[in-house]
């Protein structure tokens, strides 16, 4: 699905990512864990093209991002890449001037040129799936944090992405709502979605992620199946992190 090789990103001469490599197979979930400042969020921003990479490559289906591309060509490929990747930000960034329904159909109608009526019926299905059927006409500000997050998920899914990425999805949720989100996402995985989830909450990823990747200081310390990373990590740094997180 997506493959990252020796990815390097530097900001003002400081290397934020120092050669990150991994791959995500279709219909699997990769959890990216690590302390704050380990480069997790920057990794996501490189994957969806918000940051230009300084080394290595990103490959998603047949689209390759490399450093030797012209600015124009890079931008063109990022555009294609974004058609395949949906992102749910930590801060969501719902559009406050549009209703819940408006948030969801905005891109399908104006980017994909789906007829409004068709987009609306698809959006209703998505809202149904995330349990917000009754709130289609509301404005985001009037929703709770958990509801807003589900609107953001529906908004991303409305573009039919092959890969869905989350940045700290549980940061604003209480444990009960975290569990609710986890079962919602698990449902999407069972229907064939692929996901990359950046989170510091190991509890949330347990039983959701197929594989885990532990980052520290812009490097991948260890990656493997979730069970293995959580129960028998090979690297002492992973062990420390997992111990503390538990």
């Amino acid at each position, binding site marked *: 699905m997506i493959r990252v090789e020796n990815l390097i990103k530097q900001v003002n001469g400081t290397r934020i990512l120092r050669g990150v490599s991994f791959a995500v197979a279709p219909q699997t979930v990769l959890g990216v864990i690590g302390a704050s400042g380990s480069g997790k969020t920057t990794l996501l921003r490189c994957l969806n093209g918000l940051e230009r990479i300084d080394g290595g490559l990103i490959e998603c289906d047949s689209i390759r991002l490399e450093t030797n591309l012209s600015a124009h060509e890079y931008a063109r490929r990022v555009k294609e890449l974004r058609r395949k990747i949906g992102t749910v930000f930590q801060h969501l960034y719902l559009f406050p001037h549009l209703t819940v329904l408006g948030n969801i159909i905005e*891109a399908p109608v*104006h980017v994909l040129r789906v007829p409004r009526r068709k987009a609306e019926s698809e959006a209703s299905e998505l809202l149904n799936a995330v349990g917000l059927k009754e709130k289609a006409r509301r404005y985001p*500000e009037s929703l709770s944090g958990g509801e807003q997050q589900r609107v953001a998920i529906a*908004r991303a899914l409305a573009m039919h992405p092959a890969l869905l990425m989350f940045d700290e999805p549980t940061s604003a949720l209480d444990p009960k709502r975290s569990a609710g989100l986890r079962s919602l996402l698990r449902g999407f995985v069972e229907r064939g979605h692929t996901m990359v989830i950046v989170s510091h909450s190991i509890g949330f990823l347990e039983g959701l992620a197929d594989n885990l990747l532990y980052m520290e200081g812009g490097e991948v310390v260890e990656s493997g199946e979730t069970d293995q990373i959580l129960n028998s990590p090979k690297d002492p740094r992973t062990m420390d992190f997992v111990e503390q997180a538990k």
Partner: protein
Amino acid sequence: MIAVTLAATLFSFSSARAQQPLRWGADPSGGAPYVFNDPNHPDQYIGYEKEMADALAAAMGRRPEFVPSDWETLVSALGRGSFDVIINGLEPTADRLKQIQFSKPYYIFQLALTVRNSEQQIHSLADCRNRVVGTLGNTAASRLLEKEGVPLRGYADPVAAYRDLELKRIDAVLMDVPAEVFYVSKSKTLKRAGEPFFRGTYNIGLRKGDDALKAEVDAGIDKIIRDGTLEQILRKWNLWNDAQTELQAQIRAGQNVNVANELTSSSFNWREAIWRLARAAVVTVLVAFGSMIIALFLGLPLAVGQSKGPPWLRWLCTIYIEFFRGTPVLVQLLFLYFGLPTIGLAMPGWLTALVGLGLNYAAYESQVYRAALEAIPRGQWEAAYLLGMNPLLAFRRIILPQAFRIALPPMTNDFVSLFKDTSVAYAISVWELATAYRELANASGQFLLLGVAVSLFYLAMSLPMAHLARRLERRLQRREAIQAVEAEIV
């Protein structure tokens, strides 16, 4: 008490009569040939009335002291005591006689009609029924035009009137002969239409009750006529003619001079005044709305250009914004009205005001837009990009609607002040509310009541705007507030 008396005695001793000034007021701006700034020595005043005032003061044994003032408010300034006499080609009209008194006449003026050299159809005032004739506001000429039912445009100075005639903004100019002689004899593009007609006198204006001064002034006029000084001055300025010979003969003979003035200014009519104010209010509304629309449409690209454009565009936008914010709007309007025609772009006054204020306010609105755009979090842009939108679509559908809501309150504020700023259009002879007030109030002396009426007109226009803006804002907020409350209950 003794000290005061002593001081007064000392004062009257120390200041001989020769030291006592004759403070005379006139409007020197565009005031040729009466009194105006010497083009060769701009800090000095010249003109035939300047020379006459000097001669008159000498004849009275006083020292002349010129107080530059404003034509429209000469009478009220005299009443306030800014100066003691008006010497500015002032005619003793019925409504002026209610407020001040006049000396004996010193000059008989006639009116002359001026047209462009190419004009074939206008030979007299009778040919102007369906044309627009320019003249100075509140003069014998303007009253004659009103009485004859000729469409007129009032100007603050003759230069502007003749220039607009050259630029074909008007079809003819009716002006007192002294001004006409001075401007038209030098012009290559304008000519006199028909012979000068109508007769009226110029007299010196004094406060009511200043009878001793009036006697002194009358004696002074007698003196400069008898000794030929006035004739000499008038000849020098090409203003000597048969009418003056007649006038001076009568004065020499000690006769009472009475020029039959066919023209009594119509007495003040409130109904007509309100009607004229209402028409001026329509112009004000038109100019305010038109320029706000320009400002809103032009302000946005300026804001975007200044913050997101390539360096050369940023520079251009910044120069535009700083230029329009850093120079007075009055100067900008004068430039557009009088400057642009020299490169062949002559707009009528109301359009100049509309465009000028629009360009000016665009600079201010651009800063409102910019602040509003900067207030939108970067994440909104990124969210839009990640949904596949290009920058233009993201801007139009996501960023602009949010920014507009932030910008709405300051923009309404600006609009209300734009409403009031339309009054600068007075400078380019647009008949909007402030101009209407000045002219009607000066003609009638009803400063107080007309002031109240004009304020009511302004309020009647700006209050609904403020109200509408508040409702709009509240509606935007309420929609969210209601839902927030609903969410709490659920």
